[in-house]
């Protein structure tokens, strides 16, 4: 997910304009000049300035030269390239969406299995992890720390 400086600079400028505009529309505190609008507007202005400087390439000489890209690991990642990096956040969202209905243990097992396989684990390691991992985490967080993890369709044996 490498973007050009011109691209990131433009994105920052747009964000700055939005922050400035959004801030300026906030209601003022009656009888006072300075209210909730001041800070976002200052930040928005700063972002526009920084974005513009980045877009025209100022300050690039300070950046460390980029490291040579590492070779792709075996497994799933090799096949779908850079997109594999986005699997972890996707799995987190998956957890939010299904954990309540499916329960913690099965959801966690699916996440561990998917992540382990994507990182190039063998089936034996991935399955073992998916079986033992959720139980261990559940034991510590549910039993010891009393975090209300959802039971769902498969309640824990304790």
């Amino acid at each position, binding site marked *: *997910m*490498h*973007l050009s*400086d011109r691209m*990131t600079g433009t994105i920052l400028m747009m964000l700055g304009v939005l*922050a400035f505009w*959004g801030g300026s529309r*906030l209601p*003022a*505190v009656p009888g006072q*000049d*300075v*209210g*909730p609008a001041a*800070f*976002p507007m200052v*930040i928005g202005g700063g*972002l526009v300035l*920084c974005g513009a*400087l*980045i877009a025209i390439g*100022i*300050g*690039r*000489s*300070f*950046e*460390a030269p980029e490291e040579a890209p*590492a*070779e*792709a*690991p075996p497994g799933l*990642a090799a096949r779908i*390239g850079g997109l594999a*990096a*986005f*699997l*972890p*956040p996707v799995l*987190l*969202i998956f*957890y*939010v969406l299904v*954990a309540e209905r499916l329960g913690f243990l099965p959801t966690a097992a699916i*996440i*561990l299995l998917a*992540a*382990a396989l994507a*990182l*190039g*684990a063998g089936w034996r*390691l991935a399955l073992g*992890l998916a079986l033992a*991992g*959720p139980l261990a*985490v559940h034991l510590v*967080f549910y039993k010891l*720390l009393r*975090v209300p*993890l959802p039971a769902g369709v498969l309640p824990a044996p304790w």
Partner: protein
Amino acid sequence: MNAVLEAFGMVATTEVAIAILASAAYGMVIGALPGLTATMATALLVPVTFYLSPIAAIATIITASAMAIFSGDIPGALMRIPGTPASAAYTDEAYALTRKGQAEIALGASLWFSALGGIFGTVALMIMAPALAEMALSFSTFEYFWLSFLGLMCATLVARSSPIKAIAAALLGLLVTCIGIENPGGVPRFTFGFTDLLGGIEVLPALVGVFAVSEIMRAMTAAPPPPIPHRPLGSILGGQWALTRRYQKQMWRGNVVGVLVGALPGAGADMAAWIAYANSKRFSKEPEKFGTGHPEGLVESGAANNSALAGGWVPATLFGIPGDTITAIAIGVLYMKGLNPGPTLFTEKASSMYALYMVFIIANILMIPLGIMMIRASRHVLRAPRAAAMPMILLLCAVGAFAIGNNPFAIVLVAVFGVIGYVMERNGFPVAAMVLGIVMGTMVEQNFVTSLIKSDGDLLPFFERPVSSVLAAMTVAALLWPAFVWLLRRLRRPVPA
């Protein structure tokens, strides 16, 4: 004296003892695994600290971070892969020693000088913080505004990246803190109608996302580290006393540099190690030996990164301004446990501060026996497959974020900030600057707006009080420094035709 005894009573409990031992083992393992950083170890600990007494909670953070910074040296010396960024500065040197068959010297020096550096840093914290607290009592919102602003600027100066990108990253962090109703007007700001956003973005899910999830994301596309070769190790502390006597000056210099860099907001152990290593080479009598397996640089930078850890607590406890990313997390825990940072912490909660110092000393002494055990066991620990460790960390991110407030929205935040951190890092934006912005945003805004209200919208009073004018001058200098450096480089090196 009473406070000291009281502090001793707070530390000498079974709960604190178990907390220290468990977090020490945890920190050692996480730090030693490449790709898992000390900051990540600390961030994942936070949900657990919810369930501990204040002192035990702080003890876990101090202990785990100290151990992780040391044990990051182990894979660096054995496999030439730094376990944490703080070890990166001298990884090549340590590995060169290993190749010469002196792995035990490299690891021993890391351990011994880490522990000494940590203890020195603690003593410096004990002396510096109360003295500064006296001064901080007379600060008004103007000083606090400049101080926090200066902190943000420092973070952008020390980032090994474009200063403009660093400033942009800090501004992004500040923008994040604008979300919610906690603002001068108490109006919903940038919440887009989501009730979950009304309370603002919580710092901890953001930190877990930036430091843990984005690290896992990077691992998805990077090759796994090679297996570790078997090497018999001799006596680990054997030659260290001779090294201590021989490189005494270097050790002290490393300690002092570490504390100062650590106390600088935003610059932490990794920066301290780089600077100390460079210093060591510059002032050495035999600079030609550097890089070929020469322990001199190891002594200085190994001491620096651990003393930086304690130095980071100076601004954190005094002003609530994090000295590094680890104290950025620790500040959240301090607030949660009713130990709100500020000069009054040293007068009203003096016993807690003494207890904090004691934990630091205990952790650094405990580091030596545990470190020896860890070095001996490293062959087995480092064999733990990354494909098993990373998924478990991911699961812990989800459960840990949920545990903070039993709110699934926190997990969404973790995912979002993971992506933000990953994309920023790939494009040369330092995430540490953004984190500092997130941690300090509310403080910057409060002091900025209060000062503006006090001065009726006039900017002049920001520069009128003596301390605030000095801080303002320093901030402006920090802002203009990169331009100055750039100009200097231009003048020195004629532009090639």
